[in-house]
């Protein structure tokens, strides 16, 4: 009954999802660049086109994400934690913990079966706990970002690196490469370090299975493997984890649209 849109203004990209009656009609993403609002409007336009809908068909737009203030065309906003909880429960009915690792921030959210957020913990303002770390290391290793995962899975051990800071890790990587340390083992060390940081964060919240992993980094098999090892549990990952925030926002928008119709 409700047609809604969710807009997730991340730190690197904007993600838009259009939903109708609880089904995902389309999803698009765009790099924010120097004009984030324009980038978001563009992404919305494309999502509408893909869904074969017009702007007037959308009953409610809810925005979320670090740059939520720049989605001026949205009707309402929701916190990233709230969006994550909604998305987690939507994708997996058994979800009780949602871990979201983005470009600059990592979060963990506890939720109930209805997708209501109960508690959360955030790792912010430090690049070492988020996607930026992997990007910086891919550059230092001179490999493509997409290849980092498969590279790390080939390693049996992890090289010793100072992982408390991206900058220090970069210097360590430079000298390790100098000493002919295999790139596979360095890649594994990086994912292990990130997994340790993320799992420490989750442990502060308490591990409540089932655990769902979302965010751009969730697509990386290397990170997932390290995280599974660290947490010692299974991890559920939706097909398009990058769009979880936008899906959550779209679900919230649908609820709000329904409420306003009454």
């Amino acid at each position, binding site marked *: 009954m409700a047609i809604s849109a969710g807009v997730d203004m991340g730190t690197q990209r904007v993600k838009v999802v259009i939903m109708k009656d609880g089904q995902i009609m389309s999803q698009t993403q765009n790099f924010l660049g120097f004009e984030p609002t324009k980038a978001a409007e563009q992404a919305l336009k494309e999502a509408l086109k893909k869904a074969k809908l017009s702007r007037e068909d959308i009953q409610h737009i809810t925005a979320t994400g670090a740059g939520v203030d720049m989605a001026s065309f949205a009707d309402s906003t929701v916190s990233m934690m709230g969006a994550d909880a909604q998305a987690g429960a939507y994708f997996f009915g058994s979800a009780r913990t949602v871990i979201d690792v983005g470009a600059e921030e990592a979060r963990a959210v506890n939720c109930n079966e209805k997708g209501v957020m109960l508690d959360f913990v955030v790792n912010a303002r*430090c690049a070492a706990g988020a996607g930026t770390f992997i990007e910086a290391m891919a550059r230092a290793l001179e490999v493509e970002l997409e290849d980092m995962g498969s590279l790390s899975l080939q390693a049996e051990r992890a090289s010793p690196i100072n992982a408390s800071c*991206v900058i220090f890790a970069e*210097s360590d990587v430079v000298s390790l490469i100098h000493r002919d340390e295999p790139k596979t083992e360095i890649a594994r060390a990086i994912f292990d370090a990130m997994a340790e940081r993320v799992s420490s964060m989750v442990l502060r919240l308490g591990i409540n299975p089932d655990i769902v992993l979302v965010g751009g980094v969730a697509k990386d098999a290397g990170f997932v493997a390290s995280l599974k090892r660290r947490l010692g549990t299974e991890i559920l990952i939706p097909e398009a984890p990058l769009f979880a925030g936008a899906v959550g926002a779209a679900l919230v928008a649908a609820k709000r649209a329904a409420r306003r119709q009454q």
Partner: protein
Amino acid sequence: MGNNEEKTEYWRWGEYQRIMSRRELNTAEIITAGVDVGSVGSKAVIMTDGNVYSWSVMRTGSNSSDSAKKALGWAMEDTGLTLKDFNYIVGTGYGRVNVPMANRAITEIACHAKGANYIWGPTVRTVLDVGGQDVKAIRCDQKGKVVSFLMNDKCAAGTGRGMEIIADLLKIPIEDVGKVSLSVTDEPKPVSSTCVVFAKTEAVGLLRKGWSKEKVLASYMRAMSIRMSELIEKVGCEREFVITGGQSKNIGIVQRVENILGMKSLPVPNAEETGRDPVAAGAIGAALYAKALYEKSQR
């Protein structure tokens, strides 16, 4: 040494060795050395009867014991000294356990406080040491003994590495960043002071917005200075306040930190003439402790 390299590698600071020409080695009773191997810089100081005789400052290589040997070897160059001449050698720093020729190792905090006490005298009470990959805030007493100490080596914000990164980004030789940052007329707002990665991203954004290099540098330096000052305030800033380590020569940092703390730091003495080089404070302290330990062993 290596002056041609500095033109293209903006972040590479100059290495050097100095000998105090006026000192006589022959009359020296006790010859000691202190070697401070940091994660970025290695310093060695040779002392005769507790006075600085010669010293070296160079970049730490991939192997810390090799760096220790090189630093001490360089400090010994043209002095006629051999390893046998030393009564006692103390190693310290991040790689202090890897100073192979040292009689023992001592924690770097103790050495830094002692070194600051030697350089500026018994009135020093607060020391800000900015290393390559760490920042230390030290409170000491009139004898150079540590009273309170805090180190942040988890994060590049406020460290020498943070400075190398902005020098590299803006293509300004690192020895000039201080001067250049002070050439702005109005101090701009600082970038993120909590993470160098984000601060760098912000700096790039500011450049694109049309900010001049000087303004971006000033904004970045202010952020780094805020971070350093926060650590000093945690242990408490008591007069007299001094700055040691690589950033002691960075007037952009010195002035901003003084401004934020509301306290002037004691000026840097003429190291070439006096041997009191704040960059080598840790190694100076180590060499002094070497003398004290040697004397103790002879009693």
